């Protein structure tokens, strides 16, 4: 894959094995400043796994993920400092208020711990003093997504971020993503639904699924 100049975040010949099963092989990706990549594919095609590879939570069985040419495994803490990861779960503690939850994650990242602005981005300012145990699934998700705005990070890795979100919250997220990209940020999103993202590239994981193995396929 020829890399466009300015491409920062790349994956080369990635192989992913989950639970003894080959999920995908020979996968390349390249994300530059201002890029958005939509990861699409069937269930089990490895969208979440690819995002976890990008985050460094998962180590590839083959190939390498690089930032500016250097493998992210060399300095994982530096890689962590430049990314936001939103997974399937919303880490909102029941005993802490939304603002406390958010302030903790912000201070753990690069943020100051002042979170009112971040909550407004996702229409959640009214939830600020509500303890996590009273939140609905959608409200929890919004509180989780507010992390994106509460501290600076170049790379956003979003795994099905619109789950449980209503239309208004989804459009808040799309606006936040657009602003992030305008500022030179990068986004990788896995999704089942169509998302309105201008100029986003699609990465179809089904194309990298395992080719039938003639030896094992024989009866």
């Amino acid at each position, binding site marked *: 894959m020829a890399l466009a100049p300015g491409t920062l975040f790349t994956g080369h010949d990635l192989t992913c094995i989950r639970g003894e099963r080959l999920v995908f092989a020979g996968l390349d990706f390249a994300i530059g400043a201002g890029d958005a990549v939509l990861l699409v594919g069937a269930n089990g095609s490895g969208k979440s796994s690819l995002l976890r590879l990008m985050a460094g939570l998962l*180590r590839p069985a083959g190939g390498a993920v690089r930032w500016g040419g250097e493998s992210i495994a060399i300095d994982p803490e530096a890689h962590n*400092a430049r990314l936001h990861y939103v997974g399937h779960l919303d880490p909102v503690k029941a005993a802490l208020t939304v603002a406390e939850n958010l302030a903790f994650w912000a201070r753990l990242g690069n943020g100051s711990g002042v979170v009112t602005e971040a909550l407004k981005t996702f229409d959640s300012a009214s939830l600020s003093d509500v303890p996590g145990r009273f939140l609905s699934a959608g409200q929890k998700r919004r509180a989780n997504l507010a992390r994106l705005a509460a501290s600076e990070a170049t790379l956003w890795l979003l795994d099905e971020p619109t789950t449980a979100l209503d239309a208004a919250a989804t459009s808040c997220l799309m606006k936040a993503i657009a602003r992030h990209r305008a500022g030179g940020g990068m986004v990788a999103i896995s999704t089942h639904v169509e998302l309105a993202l201008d100029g986003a590239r699609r990465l179809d994981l089904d194309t990298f699924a395992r080719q039938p193995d003639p030896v094992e396929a024989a009866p």
Partner: protein
Amino acid sequence: MRRAFEIMRRDLRLALRQGVDSLMAVVFFVLAVVLFPLGVGPEANILARIAAGVIWVAALLASMLSLERLFQTDYDDGSLELLALSPVALELVVLAKVVAHWLTTGVPLIVAAPVLAVLLDMDAQGFVVLIVALGLGTPTMSLIGSVGAALILGARRGGVLLSLLVLPLFIPVLIFGVAAVDAAIGGFAARPHLMILSGLLIGAVALCPWASAASLRQSLE
């Protein structure tokens, strides 16, 4: 370093908000010790003889029981992933969580121990050594236990499994902890035993966060 303190502060705050949870360990500790006079009879001389051992074994079990939750809640709600993805080395995250855990469950055990020693009619000469030995032993157990707590994440029957994994590893702490108290009561020097307990603690500080972080990483893969 600042970030590690943030993690510690958050865990302490969580423990305080859910105060009952961390008190359970010390309640268990007291209850387990109180069962012994009921089991072996109320004779003061027998109780005094076994006091140090009973208190140590109960402390061992109490700290083991509380360890199960060390990473479990964070694992369940996805916090652990984000902690692993924070710009803090995971070893430091483990250390911060263990310190917070020890402050909320280990320290209450140390505070409760002298009261129980009085109940069991333990010789007053052993009190100071008992407190010092528990002060060295409980953090060691928290550290060793953190490895077990990290290993059982996502396993079936985590609780029972944890006891099988960590109780054998607690044995050196138990032996030297009891030996220190017995030595003090018997009029011998407790210092060598306490030195070994310190050695165990230093070794645990050096090795356990590393092993726990390795198990956490693979549990998140």
